[in-house]
C-alpha cells in the first residue's frame, strides 16, 4: 500500500518460495550449521534471479546479512553447499555461475526497508508524498538492536549515532524526541521473551520509562519484534499507554492511507489517542 503511494511498485517483487529467515534465537543460538543452511536456502531464491533482498524486520536482517558474511568463507560455503545439494540448490556468494548459467559477481545484497526509504526513495520524495503531516506529534525513534548491531556487517549507518529513523519521522512532519538509553534493547531478543521468566518485561520497563518521561506520543521502530514486545508489555505497566508503530505504519499514516488499512487497531495499545492528537479523532 505505501509502496504504491510512494510510486515505487516496480522496485519490488515477491520471493514466493522464501521461508523463515530463520529466526536467530531459535537457530543461530542452538545450531549454527542449520541456521546457515536455512538462511542460504533463502539467499539462493534471490541469487538465482539476480535480486536484492529487502526486509521489514531486524531479525531477518541480522540473520540474512550475517549469513552472507559467514558464506564469504570458502570452507563454510563448501560445507553449506554440501547440504544444499540435497535440495538441488547452490549458493555462489563469490564470482561464479548459477545452475541456469547466469554469472553471479557478488553476495546477495540484504537490506532493511529503512535503507530503501533513505537511499532509493529518499527523504525528499517521502516529504513530497505526505498528505496529512504528523504535525505536533512527538515520536520516540527506537531502532532496535539488530538494525544497528553487530556493526561488522554492512548497514547504512553505524551503531553509535543512528539518524535515519529520526530523519524519516521528521520528513513526515513529526518531531523526533531524544530519550535516555535510546539505543538500548526492547527486552524481547535472545529468547528472553519466549523463555518467559520476567526478564524481558523488566528490560522493557526501563525502556518504557525513558520514553514516557521524554513525553513521546508514540514509539516508532523498524522491527516487528520490538513492536510486539513494547506494545504487549504495556498491559503490565501502570500509567500512560504509548502506541507503538512500525516505521511503515508511520509513513502510511502521513501519506494518506486509511486508518482501516494501517493495522493499528490490531495492536494492544489503542491508537485512538494518536488520531485525536493528530486532530483526526
Amino acid at each position, binding site marked *: 500500500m505505501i509502496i504504491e503511494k510512494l510510486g515505487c511498485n516496480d522496485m519490488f517483487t515477491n520471493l514466493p518460495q522464501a*521461508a523463515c529467515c*530463520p529466526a536467530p534465537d*531459535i537457530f543461530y543460538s542452538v545450531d*549454527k550449521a542449520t541456521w546457515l543452511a536455512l538462511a542460504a536456502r533463502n539467499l539462493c531464491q534471490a541469487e538465482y534471479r539476480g535480486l536484492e533482498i529487502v526486509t521489514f524486520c531486524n531479525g531477518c536482517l541480522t540473520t540474512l546479512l550475517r549469513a552472507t558474511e559467514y558464506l564469504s568463507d570458502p570452507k563454510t560455503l563448501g560445507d553449506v553447499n554440501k*547440504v544444499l545439494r540435497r535440495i538441488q540448490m547452490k549458493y555462489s556468494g563469490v564470482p561464479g555461475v548459477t545452475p541456469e548459467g547466469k554469472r553471479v559477481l557478488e553476495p546477495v545484497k540484504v537490506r532493511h526497508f529503512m535503507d530503501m526509504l533513505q537511499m532509493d526513495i529518499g527523504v525528499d520524495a517521502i516529504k513530497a508524498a505526505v498528505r496529512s503531516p504528523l504535525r505536533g506529534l512527538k515520536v520516540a525513534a527506537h531502532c532496535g538492536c539488530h538494525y544497528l548491531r553487530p556493526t561488522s556487517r554492512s548497514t547504512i549507518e553505524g551503531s553509535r549515532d543512528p539518524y535515519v529513523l529520526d530523519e524519516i519521522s521528521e520528513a513526515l512532519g513529526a518531531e523526533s524526541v531524544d530519550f535516555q538509553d535510546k539505543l538500548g*534493547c526492547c527486552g*524481547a531478543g*535472545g529468547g528472553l521473551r519466549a523463555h518467559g521468566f520476567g526478564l524481558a518485561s523488566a*528490560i522493557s520497563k526501563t525502556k518504557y520509562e525513558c520514553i514516557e518521561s521524554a513525553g513521546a506520543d508514540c514509539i516508532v521502530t523498524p522491527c516487528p519484534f520490538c513492536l510486539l514486545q513494547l506494545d504487549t508489555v504495556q498491559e503490565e505497566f501502570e500509567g500512560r499507554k504509548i502506541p507503538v508503530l512500525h516505521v511503515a505504519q508511520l509513513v502510511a499514516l502521513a501519506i494518506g492511507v486509511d486508518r482501516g*488499512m494501517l493495522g493499528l487497531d490490531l495492536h494492544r495499545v489503542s491508537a485512538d489517542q494518536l488520531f485525536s492528537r493528530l486532530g483526526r479523532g
Partner: protein
Amino acid sequence: MIDNGFDRGFVDEIIAFGGGNVHACFQCGTCTSVCPVSLKVENKVRNIIKMCQMGLKERVLSTPWVCATCYRCYEYCPSVIDPTELIVALRHIMVRDFGPPKFVVAFSQSIADQGQMPLITSRIKRLREELGLHGESIDERFRGKVVREIRTIMEATGFDKLIGIKLGE
C-alpha cells in the same frame, strides 16, 4: 578433565563452538556496563566470562539463556572478544548436554511443519486479506516444496535429532 569442579577443557569447548578468544578477557567490565540484562541479574556478563575461564561449566550452564543478544558488549569490548558469541556457544553446549528449552522445540517444530513460525490460523488469513495482503505468507502453490526442502536440510544437519522434533508423519 574435571578437577575439583573445574573443567579444564571447557574453554576449548567454547572456542570450538565459535565462542571467540575467551582467554583475552581481562575483566574490565565494559560489557557489563552496557548490558541490559546484567543490570537485572546476579550473574553479569563479566562474571560469566570469568567462570568460563576458570572452567566452572556446571555453574555457567545454569544461566546461558540470560542474554538478549543485543551485541552491545561486542561493540564496546576493548579486548575485541565477542561476549554475545560466547553466550551463543554456551547455548550450543547446553543444548547438546542437557537438551533444548521448550520454546526452541515448539518453534522449530512449526518451521518444520509449515516453513514459518506463527501458526497460520483462519483469523490471521482473514486479517491479511482485509489488509490487502495475500492470505498466506508463503505462496500456497509452493508450500509443500518449501516444507520438504526445509525438512531435508534439518535432516542433513541432524537438527531434528538434536532438538527432538518430527519431520513429517
